[in-house]
C-alpha cells in the first residue's frame, strides 16, 4: 500500500514539477534575456495561471509526502548516491516552495525571487542527477516501475484527497491582496499636483510599502514603492515614492554623426529600449485582483492565437475576460511637462493593423480630442533619421524640444557639429485633451528618489476607465530608463476608502 501511495505521489510530482519549471522559465524570460534561448520549447500565454496551479499542487504534494513519510517509517532505499541526491532534491524543493510563496506575498526584499530562480535551476540539476541517472540505469523498465500502480492496491483515498485539496487551495490563492487605506480629505483642503509631498495632508497620511522586482537598470532590478492615498468627494490623490538612483531624461536623443542624425538606442528597434529612455511609472486598476497582473499578462513571442507576434519575444498585455483594466502611464519627459499621466487601458486584443509594425494587443491609449507629443524624426530607421525640427541653439537632450526656440529642419541650415545631441520629443500642439487627459500627474526627482503625485476623478465618463471606489485593486510598476522592462509585484493592492 505504501508503495502505491509513493507511486501516485511520484507521478503527480513529475507532472507538477515539469509544469512548474516550464511555466516558471517562461516567466523568467521577461527579466532574463538568456532564457529566451529556451523560448521555442516553453509554453506561451497566461503561464502565471499554470505556475500558480503547479505551485499549489506542489505544496499539497509536499505536505502529503510528509504525512506519507510519517506513516511509512521504513528507511530510504536505493544506493548511497541516490539517497544523497534525494536529500539534495528535498532541500532545493523546500527552498523553491518557500521563496515562491514569498514572491506570491510580495516578500521579495531579501531577493526571494533570485533564490527562487536559483532553486529552479538546481531542480533541473536534481532532475538530471536523479531522473536521468535512473533512466540510464534502468531504461524502459523504469517506466513500468514508476507508472504501473496495481489496481488492487490503488490509493483511492490519497487520490481523492489530492483532487479535492489542490483546487480548493488554488481557489484560495486567487485572492491575494494587501490593503491601502485611502484617507478622507477635508473638502476645503487644496492639493497642488507638483510632485512634492510638502502638503500637510500628505504628512499625516499613512503609507504602505510595496517591494517591486524584475525591472531593468534598478539596483538588483528592484525598488520599493511607498504609496499614500487621499480622497474627497470628487477625486482621489495618490503619492508614489520610489528609489531610482539615476534621473533619466535623455529619451532616445538624436545624435549627429558623420552619416547624419541617428537615434541613440540599444533595443528600440525591437521596442525594448533599456538605455536611452526616460524614467516612467505605471499604475493599473481593476475590479478584480488576480495573479499575473490580473490575468492580463500573456507571455511569449506569439501568445495569442490569430494575433501578430511581438518583436522582443516577451509578450504583451490583453484582457481576455472582456473587462477593462485602467492603466495610467506617467512619463518623465513626454507627459511630465503636460502635468499628465497618459491615460491608457488594457482591453481585449485589438484588431491588428496592416501598416503598423508594432502590435500592442490590448494595451491602448484612451481616446483623445486633441493634443500630442510627437517624436522629432520624420521617419525612424536604425541607419539614420531626418529631424523634424532643430533647436535654434544647442540644447540638452534631457528635455522636450521647445517649439518656440526651434525651427523646421533644413539641411542647408544644419550646422551642428558631429557629436551634437538634441531632444527627440516635441510638443507639436496642446497637451492631451479628452479621455486620455483624465489623469493629472507631476513627478519630481531628488537625491535618488522620484516623488509622483497623481490625481483623477473618482468617476469619469470614459468606458476605458475604472471608477475609483472601495475594493478596486491596484498594481504599480517603475521603469528606470527602460521602455518595457518594468518592475512588478504579485499581490494586488486593494483600495479601502474611508467613509
Amino acid at each position, binding site marked *: 500500500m505504501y508503495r502505491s501511495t509513493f507511486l501516485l505521489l511520484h507521478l503527480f510530482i513529475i507532472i507538477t514539477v515539469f509544469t512548474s519549471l516550464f511555466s516558471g522559465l517562461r516567466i523568467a524570460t521577461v527579466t532574463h534575456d538568456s532564457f529566451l*534561448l*529556451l*523560448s*521555442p*520549447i516553453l509554453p506561451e500565454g497566461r503561464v502565471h495561471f499554470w505556475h500558480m496551479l503547479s505551485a499549489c499542487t506542489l505544496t499539497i504534494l509536499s505536505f502529503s509526502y510528509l504525512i506519507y513519510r510519517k506513516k511509512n517509517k521504513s528507511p530510504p532505499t536505493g544506493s548511497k548516491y541516490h539517497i544523497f541526491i534525494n536529500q539534495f532534491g528535498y532541500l532545493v524543493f523546500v527552498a523553491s516552495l518557500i521563496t515562491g510563496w514569498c514572491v506570491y506575498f510580495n516578500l521579495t526584499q531579501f531577493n526571494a525571487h533570485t533564490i527562487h530562480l536559483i532553486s529552479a535551476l538546481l531542480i533541473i540539476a536534481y532532475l538530471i542527477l536523479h531522473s*536521468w541517472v535512473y*533512466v*540510464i*540505469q534502468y*531504461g524502459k523498465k523504469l517506466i513500468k516501475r514508476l507508472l504501473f500502480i496495481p489496481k488492487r492496491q490503488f490509493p483511492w483515498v490519497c487520490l481523492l484527497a489530492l483532487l479535492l485539496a489542490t483546487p480548493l487551495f488554488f481557489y484560495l490563492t486567487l485572492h491575494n491582496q494587501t490593503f491601502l487605506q485611502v484617507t478622507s480629505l477635508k473638502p476645503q483642503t487644496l492639493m497642488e499636483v507638483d510632485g512634492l509631498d510638502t502638503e500637510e495632508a500628505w504628512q499625516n497620511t499613512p503609507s504602505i510599502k510595496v517591494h517591486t522586482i524584475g525591472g531593468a537598470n534598478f539596483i538588483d532590478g528592484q525598488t520599493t514603492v511607498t504609496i499614500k492615498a487621499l480622497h474627497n468627494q470628487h477625486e482621489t490623490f495618490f503619492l508614489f515614492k520610489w528609489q531610482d538612483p539615476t534621473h533619466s531624461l535623455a529619451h532616445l536623443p538624436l545624435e549627429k554623426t558623420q552619416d547624419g542624425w541617428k537615434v541613440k538606442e540599444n533595443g*528600440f*528597434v525591437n*521596442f525594448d529600449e533599456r538605455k536611452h529612455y526616460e524614467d*516612467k511609472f505605471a499604475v493599473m486598476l481593476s475590479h478584480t485582483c488576480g495573479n499575473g497582473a490580473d490575468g492580463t499578462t500573456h507571455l511569449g*513571442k*506569439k501568445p495569442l492565437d490569430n494575433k*501578430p*507576434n511581438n*518583436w522582443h519575444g516577451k509578450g504583451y498585455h490583453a484582457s481576455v475576460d472582456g473587462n477593462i483594466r485602467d492603466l495610467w*502611464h506617467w512619463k518623465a519627459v513626454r507627459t511630465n511637462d503636460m502635468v499628465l499621466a*497618459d491615460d*491608457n487601458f488594457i482591453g481585449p486584443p*485589438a*484588431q491588428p*493593423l*496592416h*501598416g*503598423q*509594425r*508594432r502590435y*500592442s494587443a490590448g*494595451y*491602448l*491609449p*484612451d*481616446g*483623445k*480630442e*486633441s493634443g*500630442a*507629443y*510627437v*517624436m522629432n*524624426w*520624420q*521617419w*525612424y*530607421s*536604425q*541607419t539614420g533619421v531626418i529631424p*523634424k525640427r532643430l533647436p535654434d541653439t544647442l540644447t540638452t537632450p534631457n528635455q522636450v524640444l521647445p517649439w518656440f526656440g526651434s525651427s*523646421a*529642419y533644413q539641411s542647408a541650415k544644419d550646422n551642428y557639429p558631429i557629436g551634437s545631441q538634441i531632444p527627440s520629443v516635441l510638443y*507639436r*500642439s496642446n497637451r492631451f485633451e*479628452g*479621455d486620455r487627459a483624465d489623469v493629472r500627474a507631476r513627478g519630481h526627482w531628488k537625491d535618488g528618489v522620484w516623488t509622483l503625485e497623481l490625481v483623477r476623478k473618482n468617476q469619469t465618463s470614459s468606458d*476605458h476607465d475604472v471608477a475609483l471606489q472601495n475594493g478596486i485593486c491596484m498594481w504599480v510598476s517603475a521603469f528606470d530608463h527602460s*521602455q*518595457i522592462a518594468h518592475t512588478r509585484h504579485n499581490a494586488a493592492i486593494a483600495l479601502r476608502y474611508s467613509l
Partner: protein
Amino acid sequence: MNARIVSSLLILAAITLYCSIERATEPSHEHPRYTKISADGEPLKPWQGPWACVLDHQSNLLWEVKTDNESIHDGYWTYSWFNNHAGEENLGDCYFEPARCDTEDLVRHTNRHGLCGVKNWRLPTHTELQSLVQAPTRPSSTHIAHDYFIHIKHGDYWTSDSDDQLPAHFEQFQMGGKAVNFHTGQSMTLPYRNAAFTMLVSTAPNLTAFRFNTPRLSNRTSVITQPKENDK
C-alpha cells in the same frame, strides 16, 4: 547502458538544435485595399516608409498622405475652398504661402513638385472621399485606415463638389462646398470661406506600375519602421 547514454545525449542535442534555430520574423501582410507609395513613386511593403501617397486598389485612385513635417503636405494646414476662380481665396492657415491658403494653392504646389511622380493632383469628389470612410479601429481614432492615412485630423476635409445649398445656420452664405468629417464619418456642406483640411487625389496614368508584387517592390528590402507616439 551505453546506448541509453548516447540516445539521451542525442535527444539533448536535438532540443538544443531546435532552440537555436533562427526563427524568421513574421512578415507583414499586404493590405487588401491599400498600398503605400514612396515620394518617388515606388510601391512599399506595409511596414516600410516613409510613404507620401496611398494607392487605393478599389477605386484606382492615388491619395496624398499628410505629414507633420511643416512641408506643403502638413496635416495641420487648413484651406478655404477655391477652385477655378470660384469659392473664397486665402482664408486657411499654412506656412508655405506668403498670404493665407486655399485649396488651389495646395493643388498647384503639389503638381509643381510632382508628388509620387504624378502631376494631375486635384480635390477628390465627394463620392471618392466618402469611399475612404470606415469604422475607427482604435478608441477615438479617425474614420479612416489611420495606419495608412496618417495625420488625418478629427475634422472636415474638402471635396470638389460645390454649389451645394448650405444648411440654415449658414444661410447668409447661400452656397458652399461639400466636405467629409473624419471624426464622425459624416458629410456636410460648409461655406467656401471655412478653413478645412484637404487631402488631394490623383488618377495616376500608370497605375499598373504600383500593383502588388511588382519587380520594383523587391528592390526595397530593408524593413524600416516608425514607432508611434503611444509606444510605451
